[in-house]
């Protein structure tokens, strides 16, 4: 006797269709799973048997063999439980075999027969080509976001068996959860004073420029980073799908189905290369840079991250995708994120005014050397964050609220979209020349700075790009004048004494 059911398994952030074949034959009663199951999948034996019995259904007194096809693909996780169970029910004629046709089953089983959601429902549903998908009740909204096909939520295996046997209709879907409020907390109005930091955060959000904040502890770097996420516009359907795909595959909670707001990920500085980039022993999982896809990756205490970890980020930062190769296979993860980093100017963190730091030159240089030049170059915006002015703090005058700034950011992003990119940071040199010409005065000012050694050729493009974002934020014509250039240069301060002596030495 033979029955089949369709399901899917996750490899990286992609679903792959799996056919579960169940065969019963005479012999000593047994239950074997073949077809490259991993540990969690092999344990399905005990879960499926217990769930079938707990649901008041019969387990065959014969030799049961389950094959997971294609047998060359490694299957991971417990998402295949439900498909195995219904195939067993079909082979024992407790449900009609035809009822499984055109349907796919995704879900993990509890010993009591409950159907539970698993990680990766969105990419798994996406990969399936069947007319209907049966998922756990809790995963209903995520599965629905993936495809316009029929999605049937079930709570227990017994319920599912009744429906398949034709004894009951499909259960009603769970109620739609409330959407998160359009104005996210925390609000930017909490940031008092600090005009340059506020400005940099706004520009970063509008142009997608990576931001590096240097400042002593307690200056409000983390506070600014948390508020930056609130300035970003809601994700477009396409971006939301990309982001949700990764988040779903990583098993992050997705209560409303599609993730419509950009996510803030802030890994601790002890994170390994694997944790940040992706990988893993048993399965290839997306790393933090992919979880932050279309969102913000906040690296606090950048100087404390292992240099190898930081340098591993360079290529994904540039290409927007990372390919992770392991013995298990190769996976591609999307990595388009806004990088926001914060660090102390030196290990003592008190490097306030020049000459007041108590760190030795060697210690300070070693600290800053952890940031490689190429990585530092990725930051279009580098600012010093100083604690707010005490008078302003006590005055109690609040800053501009998130709503006001976010509307400017949204307008700037719309302009970027009219140029065919998500944000200005993606513009190439040619596009910049076309979309943001320089005024003659700006041209002259740039030439002077290049001559004076205050700007490198590589930095030139980035500065023009930031200047264009400044124009967009002001709602002006995209014509870069000298003042905008100067402000863009200002937001690209030298970092510690890593670059300063060169620039300062070149000054007359």
């Amino acid at each position: 006797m033979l029955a089949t059911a369709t399901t899917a398994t996750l490899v990286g952030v992609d679903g792959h269709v799996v056919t579960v074949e169940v065969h019963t034959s005479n012999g000593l009663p047994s239950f074997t799973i073949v077809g490259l199951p991993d540990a969690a999948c092999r344990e399905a034996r005990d879960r499926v048997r217990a769930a079938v019995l707990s649901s008041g259904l019969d387990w065959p007194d014969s030799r049961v063999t389950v094959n997971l096809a294609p047998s060359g693909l490694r299957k991971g996780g417990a998402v295949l439980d439900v498909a195995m169970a219904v195939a067993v029910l079909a082979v024992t004629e407790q449900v009609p075999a035809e009822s499984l046709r055109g349907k796919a089953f995704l879900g993990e089983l509890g010993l009591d027969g409950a159907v539970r959601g698993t990680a990766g429902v969105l990419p798994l549903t996406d990969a399936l080509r069947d007319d209907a998908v049966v998922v756990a009740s809790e995963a209903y909204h995520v599965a629905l976001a993936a495809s316009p096909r029929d999605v049937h939520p079930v709570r227990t295996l017994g319920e599912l068996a009744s429906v398949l046997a034709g004894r009951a209709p499909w259960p009603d879907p769970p109620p739609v959860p409330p959407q998160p409020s359009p104005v996210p907390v925390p609000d930017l109005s909490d940031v008092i004073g600090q005009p340059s930091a506020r400005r940099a955060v706004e520009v970063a959000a509008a142009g997608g420029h990576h931001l590096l904040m240097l400042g002593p502890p307690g200056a409000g770097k983390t506070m600014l980073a948390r508020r930056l996420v609130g300035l970003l516009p809601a994700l477009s359907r396409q971006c939301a799908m990309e982001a949700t795909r990764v988040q779903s595959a990583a098993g992050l909670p997705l209560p409303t189905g599609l993730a419509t707001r950009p996510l803030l990920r802030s890994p601790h500085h002890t994170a390994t290369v694997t944790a940040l980039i992706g990988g893993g022993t048993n399965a290839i999982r997306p790393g933090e840079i992919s979880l932050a896809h279309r969102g913000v990756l906040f690296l606090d205490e950048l100087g404390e991250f292992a240099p190898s970890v930081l340098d591993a980020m360079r290529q994904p930062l540039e290409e927007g995708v990372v390919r992770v190769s392991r013995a298990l296979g190769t996976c591609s993860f999307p990595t388009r994120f806004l990088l926001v980093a914060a660090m102390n100017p030196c290990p003592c963190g008190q490097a306030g005014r020049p000459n007041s730091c108590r760190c030795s030159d060697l210690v300070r240089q070693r600290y800053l050397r952890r940031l490689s030049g190429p990585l530092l170059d990725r930051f279009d915006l580098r600012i010093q964050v100083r604690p707010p002015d005490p008078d302003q703090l006590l005055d109690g005058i609040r800053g501009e609220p998130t709503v006001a700034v976010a509307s400017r950011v949204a307008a700037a992003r719309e302009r970027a979209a009219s140029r065919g990119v998500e944000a200005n940071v993606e513009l190439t040199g040619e596009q910049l020349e076309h979309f943001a010409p320089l005024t003659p005065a700006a041209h002259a000012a740039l030439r002077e700075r290049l001559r004076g050694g205050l700007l490198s050729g590589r930095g030139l493009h980035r500065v023009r790009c930031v200047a264009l974002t400044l124009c967009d934020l002001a709602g002006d014509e995209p014509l870069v004048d000298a003042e905008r250039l100067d402000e863009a240069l200002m937001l690209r301060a030298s970092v510690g004494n890593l670059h300063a002596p060169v620039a300062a030495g070149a000054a007359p």
Partner: protein
Amino acid sequence: MTAGASASSKERAELGALAALCSLPHMGPARVRALLTGRDAPEAIDQLRAGRAAALAELRSCRGVDETLIATWRRQIASAFEHAAIDGHPVGADLLAAHAREGIWLSVPGRSDAAEIWESDPEPPALLFGQGSVIDPQVRRVGVVGTRRCTAYGRTVAQQLGSGLAAAGVAVVSGLATGIDGIAQRAALDAGGSVIGIVGSGLDQVYPASNRTLWADVARHGTLLSEYPLGRRAAQWQFPARNRIVAALCEVLVVVESGSAGGSMYTVDAAAERDRPVMAVPGPITSAASAGTNRLLAEGCAPVCEVADVLAALGEPGRGDAVPNGLGLPAAPAEPLDQRVLDELSAGPRTLDEMALLTGTSLGELASSLGRLQLSGWASEAGGWWEKAR
């Protein structure tokens, strides 16, 4: 006496033995001098190896010398003799050869062309290792020293002093360190002047590594000196010792910027000990980097307001005509906003946020203003801090 092709074999043997002595760990000039009283270097090293009571007694009278140290020296000398015996050369010949390969000459200060400099010195080095040209006693020498953590103001003054002295045909003597020392010497080199750089490690041990190019340029176009043989790493105690050579070699010492305690203050003490006039560049009394120099001025040190002041102290006031503008100021900023920004910067370094708050202008306008000031040399930025550079 300088090692060269013309040196006789006796002189070479003597230099080799001296180099071998100076290569011993913790063998400073005082100890070498003690050992060399009444005997020449080959004799001294021979007696030390043999453990002669007379030589050991001289050493034991030096502070900090104990039996362990003497035992270490004797062990090292014994092994040097063994190697020399195998090669069939006198002791230290391998050292001389190694230095010659790197283009390094050895000079015994008291017997060199510049012997008069060292005549009355309380603590002359036993042996100097040099690269580049030999010190010409006819060329006047001014020491320019200061803190490693200089401000933009100090940087500007060091640059102008370096290039001004070079234009006046005066050699700049300094320690090749980060900050004032290196800046002054770089400026002097760029202006085509002569420089004498004294370092606190072996000539192949560049410290700080960021000065590698400067180090090589000084060796090529000036004189690079060290008291230590090749391979000696930089150690903290070697820097004050280096500073005394700076003080001895200069005729006038100018301190550009220095905290109230620091290496430059050691140089000042060493210069005073040798009757070298010390001059200081006045700085803002609010600046920590000028605390030491302002204290020197308060104690009666002569101030440096322009290069001519230094030349006058050197007794060469006529040479000031060759110096273009002294420490002249650039044209005052034309824009009223620039002037306001500059006024705010006069009180000390400021961040962008502070400037925006104080001047009440938009970030864009402020950026433009600071950009103009930076290009005209009035202000400079480092690590997010803006400073008045003049």
